[in-house]
């Protein structure tokens, strides 16, 4: 029974990272209609920033999180300005540009961190909270899930209660209709990628003390983000968050009770199944032809 409850805790904590990464991907795809293959690398840059500033140069952890978020946001905005904007009407071209950025960011990481084994960041919050003398939640993980929920809450508020948020959602529903109502799509795209990149930077920063940091950690992030985006329904942020929690719990339980590879294979097959039954995902709407 303890294992069951512990797995629920493990799964919820993991869903925090999945949600932050997936929400960023959905926002960028929903608003700009381009698949950002370099999204995993944005998360990696967030993690490397925390490793380089905090682990190597002792900058306080909270400040490095802010720096990580702003650095990744700047990278995202540069990508929008120089790559995605010229490729506005050619999503495939945008996809290839993002792959180009993927290679460049990975090499930048090897230059910064060298080619040795994966990097580690000692967790700033020591110790573990023990509930009912068997449920163990390390404080660092508690911090990460708390910040994830707070960030998602902030995003939800921004999207539902601010003018900019409305514009973002309008563009993600129907880009042509939105531009008819005079919404300047370039400015909106810049905001969308800024918010999406910030989320990715935050996910990386929160993951840094909890996982192996290496130039290729982005690969797993992008696969999970794709699965969650699809199952949740493209263009639907709430779908992505719900799917993140479901997939994280599912993957945790199957890994605990069976084996990791079985978890991933079955996760992928479930995704294909969802696409067969509802080709637009649980919450999604049909992407306009």
């Amino acid at each position: 029974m303890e294992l069951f409850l512990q797995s629920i805790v493990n799964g919820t904590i993991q869903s925090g990272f999945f949600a932050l990464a997936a929400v960023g991907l959905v926002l960028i795809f929903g608003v700009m209609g381009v698949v950002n293959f370099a999204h995993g690398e944005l998360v990696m840059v967030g993690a490397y920033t925390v490793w380089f500033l905090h682990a190597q140069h002792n900058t306080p952890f909270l400040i490095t999180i802010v720096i990580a978020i702003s650095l990744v946001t700047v990278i995202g905005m540069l990508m929008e300005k120089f790559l995605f904007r010229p490729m506005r009407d050619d999503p495939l071209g945008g996809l290839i540009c993002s792959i180009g950025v993927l290679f460049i960011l990975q090499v930048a990481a090897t230059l910064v961190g060298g080619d040795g084994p994966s990097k580690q960041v000692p967790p700033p919050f020591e110790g573990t909270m023990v509930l009912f003398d068997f449920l163990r939640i390390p404080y660092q993980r508690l911090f990460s899930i708390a910040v994830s929920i707070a960030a998602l809450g902030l995003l939800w508020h921004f999207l539902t209660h601010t003018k900019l948020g409305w514009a973002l959602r309008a563009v993600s529903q129907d880009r042509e209709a939105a531009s008819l109502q005079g919404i300047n799509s370039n400015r909106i795209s810049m905001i969308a990628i800024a918010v999406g990149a910030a989320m990715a930077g935050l996910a990386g920063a929160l993951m840094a003390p909890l996982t192996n940091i290496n130039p290729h950690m982005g690969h797993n992030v992008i696969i999970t983000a794709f699965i969650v985006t699809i199952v949740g329904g493209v263009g639907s942020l709430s779908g992505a968050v719900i799917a993140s929690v479901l997939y994280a719990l599912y993957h945790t339980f199957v890994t605990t009770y069976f084996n990791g590879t079985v978890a991933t294979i079955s996760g992928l097959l479930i995704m294909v199944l969802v696409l067969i039954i509802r080709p637009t995902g649980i919450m999604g709407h049909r992407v306009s032809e």
Partner: protein
Amino acid sequence: MPGTVIRKTVAIGILFIALAILPHFLKYHHQDFLIFLVINVLVVVSYRLVTLTGEWSLIHAVMMGVGAYGSALLSKQAGLSFWISFPLAGGIAAIVAALLCFPLFRMTQFYFLIGSFAAGEAIRLSWIHFIKPFGGTSGISAIPSPELLDIDFLEPIPYFYLVLIIVTICLFLLFRIEKSRIGLTLHAVHWKASLAESIGVNTWNYRSLAFITGSFFVGLAGALKVHYIGTVTPKQFDIGFMVFILIWVIVGGYRTFYGAILGAVVLSVLDEMFREFNELRPAIYGAILIFSILYLPAGLESLPQRLKRVFGRKDRQMERT
């Protein structure tokens, strides 16, 4: 206009002869590079057929792996000779593709892209998971090379000619398909599926036909590769390789038949030239990608027309003066 037809066949003839004598001038290990390049040309052209109907699939690399594993298992476990396991490898890839048609073709556009990726990754992970018979991450090794008379197919030059002949035949078949009535209908499905449907084209059948045929040819390419290296592993067909196929086709240009070939050849040669930069090589490759997409949106294939237009204008000016 037989003029252009003759000029085209002569050009292809010269190219073929040049390609046939090229390995003798290359340094030894570049002969291997040439073999894998010619095999990759078959991979990109078969991918072109799959994407003719406008659907971008991310399963093509895994289909190559299905052919590779098929041929490896047939030749090792069942003891079949290369000349039997090689065509069967294409058949196995085609059958797997046929089985996947139902789930995959209910999806379109972005969902098909990611759905095909998921199905492919599930197949690839099962190679890792089931040690028997796939051998897990170290895969299958000591795959026998082809036997014919007493030609030593372990040497690069004889194997190069084997690959060149087989790939040329496959390219001819693929060219015939695209220029045939089937190709015309696939283009029609791409440009306006609803109109094609209304005049009797069953778009589902034609998308499946393109997918199955493309998978057949890439399965052959997979078999060709592993019977030279002698070992097949899941890593050879991962998303990394699939990304390269995507890059070659898109940067090369997907409006003409030779666009993808141009992309594969030019980008692979560039990648090999930057070998000394070691860890910096992927970054240079990334920069080339971005540069070619931003400043050559219609792909490398548009270069000849663009150059003709530039030179053409000069000729016309000369005529006028």
